[in-house]
């Protein structure tokens, strides 16, 4: 599983997305389900999938799928 797939798996789990969902649409507050609660759920899913505790800076900066992949690359030990 690539890093991008691993991050997308957390988004899928959080927002119940289909495999072929256009990932560029995943932007905080633009994608309707991605509000403050969605963000909280997403962070929990990422922390579980990556077995990590995200730092405050990273939680605040995670504003799109692309940004999430960039951030999670620093937590990916594989």
């Amino acid at each position, binding site marked *: 599983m690539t890093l991008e797939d691993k991050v997308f798996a957390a988004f899928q789990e959080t927002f119940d997305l289909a495999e072929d969902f256009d990932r560029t649409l995943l932007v*905080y*507050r633009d994608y309707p389900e991605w*509000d*403050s*609660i969605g*963000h*909280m*759920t997403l*962070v*929990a899913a990422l922390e579980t999938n990556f077995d*990590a505790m995200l*730092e*405050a*800076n*990273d*939680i*605040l900066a*995670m*504003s799109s799928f692309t940004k999430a992949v960039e951030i999670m690359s*620093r*937590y990916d*030990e594989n």
Partner: protein
Amino acid sequence: MPSDPSRASPIVFRTPTAHDFAPLAEIRRDRRMQSLLMAIPQRTDDESVREWIDRRVHEPHGLFRAIATDDAQGAVGFIQISQVHVRNRHGFGALAVSERCTLPGVALLAMRELLRLARVELGLAKLMAEIRADNAMAIRMNTLLGYTIVGTLEKHFADHDDVRHDVVLLEKTF
């Protein structure tokens, strides 16, 4: 695994400063938000807002922190722990984040800080929360962070229009 000390958090939790007065007053004067917080301030002029902040800051055995993302711009919300029972080591936690705050994750970080302060700084064994039953977002946020629902207090809160609302009581033990 990142842990670079040079990457200081852009969000801080501090005792309110003069910079925080205007945004905290805006929250205090927001009738909708106050109703969700289950508060009905009788007055919201500057003097009353100052008294409210002072009362919260000096709450016996509790705490009140402004949530700030930039010292120059003032608070985007607050966290508070009140009604602390010293012997039984429990209290009530609450938070408010301005709707103007568009940063992702501020509420999550504020909740985490609230729990940390309750456990570490105040030495509490349990934090409770009372949330209007129709505030599904806040209930969901609390349960995601480990709160469990104790029960519902029926018709427990009367809003500005004297409409009564059920209130959900939640608790998180440490």
